């Protein structure tokens, strides 16, 4: 019995990481209706940048946030202004294909620089530390920190969206680009900021991924898919829903793995398919009106 409780608990904590994968994806879709196929590869790129920074400077793993988050944010702004803004329009094909091309470029660029070897960031003693919750039920410190960071990031995004001027600009641009422009908003700049924010979240997700598990240049697409599934399960345009979506996906995976190791990913996909069949708009779709 405790094994199952452990599996569910680990799933919940894993769900926090998936929610982080999903938050960046959801954010830019909300603001500019862009689905970034390279999202997973950008997460892996952030993990590799963190790896390189730690290798060169020798700073502790979790301190690499200080460098990687701003670096990815700047990359996001530049990418949006230089490339992605040109693809936005009524046609969904250009952004899809351009980000698909970016995905292949990032994957092969990482392969060229870091080889296909599987890597991991060593976070020290914290990696194996755990604290008991009840008899036989232990929680790892690192997964718990990951989950707390995920909740904090999503809470922060929520505040930013509904309590700040920038968030108002995001929502206005999302609701009606032309009118927002008439009100003096420069949507190219707003989109740049949204992508910067998205990649800042991606950076956090990438570092947490890298200390949690092995990664290699080809690991991106699976992260994109997990993030996407969390978004759809939770309901488009709802950040807290995305957190629940991530948790459902995480629990499905860990419980599936508990039944049979070969079923870990399949169980997650089945959870996604089930939600898609029963509630095509997700469990918590954004209220309209």
């Amino acid at each position, binding site marked *: 019995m405790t094994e199952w409780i452990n599996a569910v608990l680990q799933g919940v904590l894993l769900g926090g990481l998936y929610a982080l994968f999903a938050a960046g994806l959801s954010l830019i879709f909300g603001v500019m209706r*862009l689905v970034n196929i390279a999202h997973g590869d950008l997460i892996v790129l952030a993990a590799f940048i963190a790896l390189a920074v730690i290798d060169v400077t020798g700073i502790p793993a979790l301190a690499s946030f200080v460098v990687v988050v701003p670096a990815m944010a700047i990359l996001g702004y530049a990418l949006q202004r230089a490339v992605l803004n040109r693809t936005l329009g009524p046609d969904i094909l250009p952004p899809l294909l351009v980000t698909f091309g970016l995905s292949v470029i990032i994957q092969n660029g990482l392969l060229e620089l870091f080889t296909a070897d599987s890597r991991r960031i060593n976070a020290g003693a914290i990696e194996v530390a755990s604290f008991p919750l009840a008899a036989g039920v232990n929680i790892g410190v690192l997964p718990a920190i990951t989950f707390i960071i995920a909740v904090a990031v999503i809470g922060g995004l929520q505040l930013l969206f509904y309590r700040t001027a920038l968030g108002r600009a995001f929502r206005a641009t999302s609701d009606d680009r032309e009118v927002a422009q008439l009100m003096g908003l420069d949507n190219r700049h707003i989109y740049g900021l949204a992508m910067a924010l998205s990649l800042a979240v991606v950076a956090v997700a990438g570092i947490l991924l890298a200390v949690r598990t092995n990664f290699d240049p080809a690991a991106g697409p699976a992260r994109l898919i997990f993030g996407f599934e969390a978004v759809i399960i939770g309901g488009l345009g709802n950040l807290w829903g995305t957190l629940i979506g991530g948790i459902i996906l995480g629990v499905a995976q860990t419980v599936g793995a508990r039944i049979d190791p070969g079923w870990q990913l399949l169980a997650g996909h089945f959870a996604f398919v089930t939600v898609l069949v029963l509630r095509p708009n997700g469990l918590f779709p954004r209220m309209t009106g």
Partner: protein
Amino acid sequence: MTASAFTIERSTPASRLAMLAAMLTLVVLVLAPWWANRADLRLIGEIATYLALASLWNLLAGYAGLVSVGQQAYVGFGGYMLFALAMFGGINPLFAIPLAGVLGAIIAAPVALLVFRLQGAYFAIGTWVVAEVFRLLFSQVSALGGGSGTSLPVDLVRSIASGRDLREMLVYWATLALGAGTVIGIYALLRSRRGLALTAIRDSESAAQSLGIDIWRTKLTVYLLVAGATSMVGAIIFFQKLRISPDAAFSVNDWTAFVIFITVIGGIGTIEGPIIGTLVFFLLRELLADLGTLYLMILGLVAVLVMLKAPHGLWGLLANRLNLSLFPVGRRLKITSKE
């Protein structure tokens, strides 16, 4: 009094010339076993499979607006069905190819009901999830070798034809027939009534709907057709390789990324685009093959640049400049005034 008389043209001098050239090329290629060596045959076969895959993806994404990044689901499914039908059903692999196509179209129906619930770009990732599910499911089937895959038994391969040369000729012709057949089939489809509906959907979905076109049904038909044909291509790809594994069968790079790049570089939403794109793709590959992963980066970069700078692809650039159409699907009105 002058009355204007008119004729409706469905072809141009350029298109008639192109048709003649295409037919001649086809004849030369059919005769290839007598003038080309084994490596050349394999290359032509590979070109034919990519031409088929790109033309099919173009029909799906360029005309029906169904931008799928999960067509590897059907390539892999078709390949596995060929192996399963041949190994467990005792069916001659050459006959198993069309059967794999039928099965692919059948399995596509429930998949379509699922992924059609997702809009636009989310549809794209949804199809990718489906392909992942297919890959994971086939890795669980131990009779087909599980995660490490399986080879087609030697006596099964021998049963097609006694000699290696004859066998390779048969496979080559089957591949060529599928490649050429796909392009011809799509051309015929687009010239038909349904094709007109598809072109209308390509240009404007809401306008097409207001003219009474059942968008959902048209898209579903195209999705099933493309899934079936893609499964046939997959069957033949892995029949050539004689070996299949989940990672090779459901590879997103091999069966979707390359195919999308080919279509985008050539020109999406035209029949000529995938043909030009396939030729450019193989030309680049032969030239840059030594660069390894750098080659893939260049390919991705070229596709991104084409999408940004020339969204209608190389063929779009050419056709606009020269007002050219080699595979005309529309009708041209020619007015001749009479006394």
